[in-house]
């Protein structure tokens, strides 16, 4: 899916669905998940269809995830942080 260019940025560790993942400091949450091979971020409220990021610039709202207990965060607009807990969102919006 995606590979990393050589990148001197520091490693940043976060949690996705209870599993530890590594990102680069400064990555958006969306970039960090895509770099880890994760393309499905949520399922839709209307039909439960799988979704992942489309625009990576804050327009499409398809990358919505739960971050540290707060739902409906745009993964492309939030910078990943050490220890951050990210979860998928399923079905109807809370």
């Amino acid at each position, binding site marked *: *899916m*995606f*590979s*990393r*260019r*050589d*990148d*001197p940025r520091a490693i940043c560790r976060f949690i996705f669905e209870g599993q530890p993942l590594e990102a*680069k400091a*400064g*990555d*958006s949450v969306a*970039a*960090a998940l*895509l*770099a880890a091979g994760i*393309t*499905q*971020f949520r399922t*839709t409220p*209307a*039909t439960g*269809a*799988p*979704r*992942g*990021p*489309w*625009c*990576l*610039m*804050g*327009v*499409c*709202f*398809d990358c*919505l995830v739960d971050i540290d207990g707060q739902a*409906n965060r745009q993964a492309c*607009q939030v*910078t990943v942080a050490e220890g951050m807990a990210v979860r998928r969102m399923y079905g109807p*919006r809370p």
Partner: protein
Amino acid sequence: MTHDCVIVGAGPAGMAAASLLARHGADVVVLDEQPAPGGQIWRGIEAADAGLRAVLGGEYAAGAAAVAEFRASGASYRPGQSVWNITPELDVWTTPADGAGHLRGRTVLLAVGAMERPVPIPGWTLPGAMGAGGVQILLKSANLLPQGLVLAGQGPLLYQLATQCIAAGAPPAAILDAARPADVWPALRLLRPAALPYLHKGLLLQGTIRAAGIPWYRGVTRLRLLGGDAVAGVRFHSGGQDTEIAANLVALHDGVIPAQHAARVAGCTHRWDAAQACFHPVLDAWGSATVPGLLVAGDAGGIGGAAAAVHQGRIAAADILRRLGRLDEAGRDRLAAADRRALARHLAIRPFLDRRYRPIALVPDDSVTVCRCEEVTAADLRAAVAMGCQGPNQAKSFTRAGMGPCQGRMCGTTVTTVLAAALGRPPGDVGHARVRPPLKPITVGELAEAT
């Protein structure tokens, strides 16, 4: 607190305007959603190492000077700020508020840029399908190289991204080029001498792609993405036959359109631009919109590209200096003269590009999802028309199209074109769905603070 000018967006237009205004002593605040200046076109430019700058090319690297000038200009810069409302009185509300979520401008300059035109084709909602611009943002901002990427659709960005991937050692697996062969000659007739440098650049990009030996299908139609829980392949028609290729990452592109929501929420009048097949705010020669004191510069006012945006930003800034009493009309005109000449040069290629790359998916087939948030198909919209729906605002009640989290950013233009076709009326008559605050998700606390 009232500022001489509140600028929304720190891309080419916003930074150029801010730099000029600050140099003339104006009190200017720049609000931007991203953590660092540059907009999407120069995204991550300050952090990009020499290798990445080489991969992305000279026009990207040129952003470093623009950002440095902006940083040194003295303009107040507030990154990580999303604007969620702009009133006709030029009150601007931002989130996260952090105690400073409300500003007022004597003038407001919207330099919010473009978004990729949605590409409503079957399967475009599957994980693994992204905008080509999105894939490029991942390269610029996170050093992510797409592997096995299939590029599908049309337009200069598709070719640019392909060459960048080649330079980075991750050549795309295939290009499915949907530009219509029949549009070549009508487009060439619109070429003017000043456009030749751009044409030359485009031909160089295409030459690089050919030299790399990337499978390049032309005249592609009937494009559809295949897969259940994620993209697994692409099916398309080209050269008289149907072809299917496996892929788990597909970048779609069909040009870019102005980001409209900020100008619409402020109450600016928009018009349908038939040549660019999108709405843009009605502007005068200085970028002034129909809301007094509000100006628009760069792609948000109509697609012209990054180089044009710089000059549009400076032209708008010149008029803002006049409005602030820092220049008289003659001084404004002198200040903007060189930018006007440069702007004309950079816009010379647009008639060619607009004609060569007419959108491919303005009026999608029945089964295609138009509103991604509420999962409303083209058939749902047509059924609404059959029941009497007259336009996008009514379509919300009939179908919920445009009422999800993206607030119609992704479907707005397509809803208009689908309804217009079904009603037999021009898109400009059918109009765009009304845009209301908040433009971005805010907390109840922020809302309470704002009322």
